[in-house]
């Protein structure tokens, strides 16, 4: 494979790839994201391949193994293109029928279709399924169209167009475009991405680093995993554009070790991009060089914090440090470093190719673009959803998520993982927006959205998150280490029937200390689950303490 030496050569390659593809040829698309793989996706794929071979259909029917499609509740998912027929909960025994009836004879197998519970209608086409219809899958949509181990697939859907455009702009103009787009970091803090790039570019020094945070530690969050597994090139493209804008020649992707498929697919993507001259030396003949290395985490939630991540990259213990001097000035090895989340990087190619004006039309005044949420918990349609900022929680949970199963009632939704807060029913019309969610006592966070029904004990949930954070605290600073330890004792006590008068007030005092005195955001945001559950569900705490009763019947007391 010869390295591409110009944007023109890239377009020539792209055209030749597209020309060789017949858009009318049936293609069986099989989801092999981690979720569907755990449902037997790999064996299912092998079965389809065998069946095609057995029936001598190799030249007539294609198979494409893709990353996560997002509709995880209904996996294993199989989509027959170009008809866009969606089959859900596919089993190996269904394979021969699907191959013969649908792929070859174009007939729909009714029983394999998705049934919309609201209308009781069977839906044939993927795009008509309410779960997908109400989303705006600008970033995630390509997962269904590409085999993540094929750079040709990525090129066929327009991949690396943005890179070719960016290197013809000045770095300053690229930064201006990202600033104008209003993109804010998708890792949780929501810091304006363009400003961060600008600070790093303007920092003193010739050696600068670009880092991708793929440590995704929030329990229940798997957006970054699915992007890194399913569309690794989109992340790489974003990073190359960022490195070009900032003036960096070396980058790192820090992937948590618990994501082996993401590590594998990202590694393959890097090799392919380098082989094609889209990464490495003299990218597209521009003279700009940028190399990326993958480093794996060692199993610590705190290493998702930017300074702890950088310490870990340096081979030191993953401990945060004070950020009075920003990492954009002194980061990795003391050099200016720009760290962004996987989803943030994945937004960059879209912003550059379609322009900031187009991008900033989506979302709200303060939060532009879309956000991918991992919708989990007591919800009918669990999976990954991509929605424009400004959509309400109600629309996500009920219209897209299909509401609460088993006829139960909605009780609360947790956004932002262990750093976020729990919001009750009367907040369901809140818009999903960085500032709106923070005002309500929660936060956007990285995108975890856990729905809870009436059989959830909110005190138990607060205890769960506090226990998680106590275990993940790095232990460096007193308020977080000792404070979470004591908070856990109190919450364990309350949920075990040993709560006493004054416990709630003591928890609130501890929370205030952690908020003010903790060294990093782990400690500073640890109070959120506790404080939000006290604010909106104080009666549950009081029932546990005063009456020794758990209203939802979860805690075994009394």
């Amino acid at each position, binding site marked *: 494979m010869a390295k591409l030496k110009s944007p023109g050569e890239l377009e020539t390659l792209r055209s030749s790839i597209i020309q060789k593809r017949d858009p009318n040829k049936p293609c069986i698309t099989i989801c092999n994201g981690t979720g569907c793989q755990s449902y037997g996706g790999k064996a299912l794929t092998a079965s389809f391949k065998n069946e095609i071979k057995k029936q001598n259909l190799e030249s007539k029917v294609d198979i494409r193994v893709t990353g996560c499609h997002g509709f995880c509740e209904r996996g294993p998912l199989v989509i027959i293109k170009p008809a866009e027929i969606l089959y859900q909960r596919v089993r190996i025994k269904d394979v021969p029928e699907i191959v013969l009836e649908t792929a070859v004879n174009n007939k729909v197998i009714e029983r394999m279709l998705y049934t919309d519970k609201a209308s009781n209608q069977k839906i044939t086409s993927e795009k008509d399924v309410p779960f997908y219809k109400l989303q705006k899958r600008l970033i995630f949509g390509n997962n269904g169209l590409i085999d993540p181990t094929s750079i040709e697939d990525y090129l066929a859907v327009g991949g690396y167009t943005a890179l070719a455009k960016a290197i013809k702009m000045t770095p300053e103009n690229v930064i201006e475009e990202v600033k104008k787009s209003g993109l804010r970091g998708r890792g949780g803090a929501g810091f304006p991405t363009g400003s961060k790039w600008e600070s790093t570019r303007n920092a003193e020094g010739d050696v600068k680093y670009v880092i991708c945070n793929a440590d995704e530690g929030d329990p229940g969050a798997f957006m970054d995993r699915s992007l890194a597994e399913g569309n690794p090139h989109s992340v790489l493209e974003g990073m190359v554009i960022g490195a070009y804008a900032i003036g960096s020649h070396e980058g790192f992707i820090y992937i948590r070790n618990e994501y082996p498929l993401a590590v594998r697919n990202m590694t393959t993507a890097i090799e392919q991009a380098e082989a094609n001259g889209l990464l490495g030396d003299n990218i597209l003949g521009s003279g700009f060089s940028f190399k990326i290395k993958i480093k794996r985490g060692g199993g*610590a939630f*705190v290493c998702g914090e930017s300074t702890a991540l950088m310490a870990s990259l340096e081979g030191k*213990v993953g401990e945060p*440090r*004070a950020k*009075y001097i920003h990492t954009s000035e002194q980061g990795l090895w003391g050099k200016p470093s720009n760290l962004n989340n996987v989803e943030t990087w994945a937004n960059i190619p879209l912003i550059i190719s379609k322009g900031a004006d187009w991008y900033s039309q989506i979302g709200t005044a303060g939060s532009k673009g879309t956000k991918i949420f991992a919708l989990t918990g007591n919800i009918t349609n669990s999976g990954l959803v991509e929605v424009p900022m400004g959509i309400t929680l109600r629309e996500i949970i009920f219209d897209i998520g299909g509401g609460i199963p088993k006829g139960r009632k909605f009780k609360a939704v947790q956004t932002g993982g262990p750093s976020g807060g729990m919001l009750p029913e009367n907040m369901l019309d809140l818009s999903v927006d960085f500032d709106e969610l923070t005002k309500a006592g929660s936060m956007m966070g990285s995108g975890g959205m856990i729905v809870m029904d009436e059989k959830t004990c909110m005190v138990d949930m607060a205890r769960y998150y506090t226990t998680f954070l*106590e*275990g*993940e*605290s*790095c*232990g*460096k*600073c*007193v*308020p977080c*280490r*000792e*404070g*979470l*330890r*004591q908070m856990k*004792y109190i919450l364990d006590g309350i949920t075990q029937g040993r709560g006493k008068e004054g416990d709630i007030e*003591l928890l609130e*005092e*501890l929370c*205030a*200390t952690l908020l*003010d*005195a*903790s*060294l990093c955001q782990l400690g500073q945001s640890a109070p959120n689950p506790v404080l939000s559950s006290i604010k909106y569900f104080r009666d549950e705490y009081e029932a546990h303490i005063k009456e020794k009763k758990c209203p939802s019947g979860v805690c075994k007391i009394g």
Partner: protein
Amino acid sequence: MVNITINGRQIKTEEGKTILDAARKNNIYIPTLCANEEVSPYGACRLCLVEIKTAKGRERLVTSCIYLVEEGLTVQTDSDRIMKIRKMLLELLLARCPDSEEIQKMAKKAGVEKTRFVEQEGNNKCILCANCSRTCEEVVGVAAISLAQRGVEREIVTPFNEDFSDACIGCGSCAYSCPTGAITMTDVKGKRIIKWPHNSMDFKLKKCSVCGQYWAPEKQIKYIAKKSGTPLSDYDKCPDCRD
């Protein structure tokens, strides 16, 4: 020079100094536990937190041991908010190390008589300020002990928690730097015993060829001789008996 205000007092201080440096130079009290002039600032105990307002009007809480002075900075070391935090931190430390006299003293000074929290049983006075490991790594240069584990399991240990650390030279710098007495060093009968929170080690002491006093661990002497490129025989006499 930089002009700052601490608790209403106008103070001139050198650039590149921390708020803590400036406060101490002007006899303004800010409690600390993990601060140590000999090693890099750590910012872990959080006792030195102060309220600041920058010249541009940005208000925040920062650890004075790390934050560098800036022109026009306003600092409050004893505001209600700070005192609340300080008291809570000391209450938490009292619960961790109920037997530490140093913590009890600091707590009393801040107005904390007792702790409302669950006390850790059988604790060893270690508050994980890491003065010992930082001194061992940055000053002595051998990194014989270190922090291990995470969160509430965090502790100061020797490599693999064994009762010997090859790198340790028995100098006792860790014991000197420990603010709570969690590390002890005793010289008795030609032997030095250093006790860390979870391990202890013995070192053979060198006897002075003139006065017969045991004056330093043989291992430490070997290390110093090697580092300075001087012969071991230079150390046969103790410092008092040398010319």
